[in-house]
């Protein structure tokens, strides 16, 4: 240890000899790494798996069950009708299942108050268990039947009541009476893969949760994606929405084993065959069962702008590495005499490599500091340029450790070649000069 502290001291003395080229090397490396860090943050967060334990067990089934025969575009609709969901629910193969959509509404405690605009997730009981939603107070609805009960997020409860424990409180949701049955703890699934349509997975979680049947009874139409294939008046959702061809529901099932997944696929095939036999499925079969981890790419929601940035910043980092390495080489070659002297006095190449490690450590410390500052500034800039990705700009421990590792590797690469060149120089020539 004492020897390594000595190596650190020697490194600092060496920096003091030529501080400007050293500072320039650190600056170039910090800028390259900082820009890379900023982009890597978004890339990592956008491509992270929010439920790694179950993302291969949650599936999104889609049926081409529409009342017309397609001729050109036979893609399966991304959303399902109420009756299709009912048909898909007529099996106990999935251990959990939940249909859902989102809508906008206004919430207040009393009619004389200014209403609070809220986003509503209209869903079923299993939603909360499937996506690991934490409950702070109260309990989730006992079944999927209609009930005038809402579940609030902690933030919404505090906004309305100034506290979080508000179970049993009465509210007006678009001027209809509802009761608070539960309050959720802080929760933000990122990316929000259960709602990947139209890149909604990039947005924040909803404010309140309403039972699906109640949502239909209250005539809430989807605010994100809906398709209709007949001329029914869907403003009367509570009556005609349940039987007509309005497609607005996303449906998720939990299939725990490959056998369950295979069985569910077979169930969907049989369902389509029955529908075709009954004359209700004029289009060719095109069933889809997409795993949650693949849903964004299936919907074409990959962030191509971030991917393009990733490539550009990687190239920029390589250019910075090359330049920093060149500067470092000049610095080491100007110190080659000292390397030769140390070797003549008995330092082996491996001892010189330890000296190099001390150089790497110091360079990494400076570089990491500079890169984190530059990266932080870069994230702020990208949040202004691409506000849709704003939620994905946080650093977690895994990401930080990864970034620190990249910085140390870059510092090592910038130091490795120059130091090897310097330590393999001709001893006698350097010492004679």
């Amino acid at each position, binding site marked *: 240890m*004492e020897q390594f502290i000595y190596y650190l001291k020697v490194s600092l003395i060496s920096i003091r000899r030529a501080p400007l080229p050293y500072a320039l090397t650190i600056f170039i490396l910090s800028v390259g790494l900082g820009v890379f860090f900023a982009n890597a943050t978004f890339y990592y967060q956008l491509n992270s798996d929010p439920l790694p334990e179950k993302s291969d067990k949650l599936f999104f089934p889609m049926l081409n069950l529409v009342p017309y025969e397609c001729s050109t575009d036979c893609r399966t609709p991304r959303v399902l009708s109420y009756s299709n969901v009912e048909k898909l629910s007529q099996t106990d193969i999935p251990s959990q299942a939940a249909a859902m959509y989102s809508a906008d509404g206004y919430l207040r405690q009393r009619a004389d108050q200014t209403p609070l605009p809220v986003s509503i997730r209209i869903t079923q009981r299993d939603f909360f268990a499937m996506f690991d939603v934490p409950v702070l107070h109260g309990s989730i609805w006992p079944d999927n039947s209609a009930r005038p009960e809402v579940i609030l997020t902690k933030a919404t409860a505090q906004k309305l009541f100034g506290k979080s424990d508000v179970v049993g409180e009465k509210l007006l949701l678009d001027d209809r009476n509802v009761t608070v049955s539960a309050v959720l703890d802080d929760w933000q699934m990122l990316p929000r893969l259960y709602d990947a349509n139209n890149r909604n997975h990039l947005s924040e979680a909803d404010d309140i949760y309403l039972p699906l049947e109640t949502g239909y009874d209250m005539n809430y139409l989807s605010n994100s994606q809906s398709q209709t294939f007949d001329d029914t008046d869907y403003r009367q959702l509570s009556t005609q929405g349940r039987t007509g061809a309005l497609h607005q529901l996303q449906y998720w099932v939990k299939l725990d084993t490959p056998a369950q997944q295979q069985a569910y696929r077979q169930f969907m095939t049989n369902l389509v065959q029955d529908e075709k036999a009954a004359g209700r499925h004029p289009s060719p079969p095109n069933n889809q069962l997409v795993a949650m981890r693949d849903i964004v790419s299936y919907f074409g929601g990959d962030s191509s702008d971030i991917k393009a940035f990733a490539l550009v910043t990687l190239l920029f980092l390589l250019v910075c590495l090359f330049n920093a390495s060149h500067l470092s080489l000049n610095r080491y070659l100007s110190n080659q005499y*000292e390397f030769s002297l*140390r070797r003549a*006095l*008995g330092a*082996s*190449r491996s*001892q010189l490599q330890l000296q190099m490690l001390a150089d790497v450590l110091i360079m990494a410390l400076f570089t990491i500091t500079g890169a984190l500052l530059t990266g932080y500034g870069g994230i702020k800039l990208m949040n202004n340029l691409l506000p849709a990705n704003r939620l994905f700009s946080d650093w977690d421990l895994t990401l930080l450790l990864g970034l620190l590792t990249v910085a140390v590797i870059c510092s090592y690469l910038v130091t490795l070649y120059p130091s090897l060149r310097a330590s393999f120089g001709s*001893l*006698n020539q350097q010492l004679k000069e």
Partner: protein
Amino acid sequence: MITLTNLSKIFRTELIETHALRDISLQINEGEFAALTGPSGSGKSTLLNILGTLEQFDDGDYQLDGKSVKGLSDAALSKLRNEKIGFIFQSFNLIKDFSIYDNIELPLRYRGLKPAQRKQRIEQALELVGLHARRSYLPSQLSGGQQQRVAIARAIAGQPRILLADEPTGNLDSLMARQVMELLEQINQQGCTILMVTHDPDQARRAGRHIQIIDGQLSDAVLYDPLAAQSA
């Protein structure tokens, strides 16, 4: 102590081969003070570098303390240099932003000595060269003669078996050169073997043995006198 047998060294470029040393056979015994002389380009520095394992040779054999250095790994050669050989260079080769103490400590650090052992050896060496009071000075704060005495202290602090000095007084005036020579003689009297490259006939005469090299070959032991060579 040092035995060279038919040692040769060739410098090669794309166009020419230069035979720097040809069939050198030489024995240097323990405790000797030998002067190595010869005209510029005769191969004396090359020979000194090979003896110091700073340079490889092509043919022949070099044995130090009865063991051949041929084929030794980088780590083994480094250990050999660190433990058995002390270097004194013409241009001192002190690290300018290290204190005198830190400069002398350099080879001792690579030997892995404990701080107390290093301190003891450094202080003994500083005492011998008479610079104990200036241990915290930087080299630039010392005269040329004092800097060379620091270099000698660095060389002897490791208690080497042989001291290789490449024109140690070449950059010094006559007074300082005489002081350095007296110091080397004192070190030799304490039992350390010394091989010194020099152009100065007076210094060569002061050594107990004179080895002359011309055109890469050992010559008869006649003192090479550059003034005589010029007039001839």
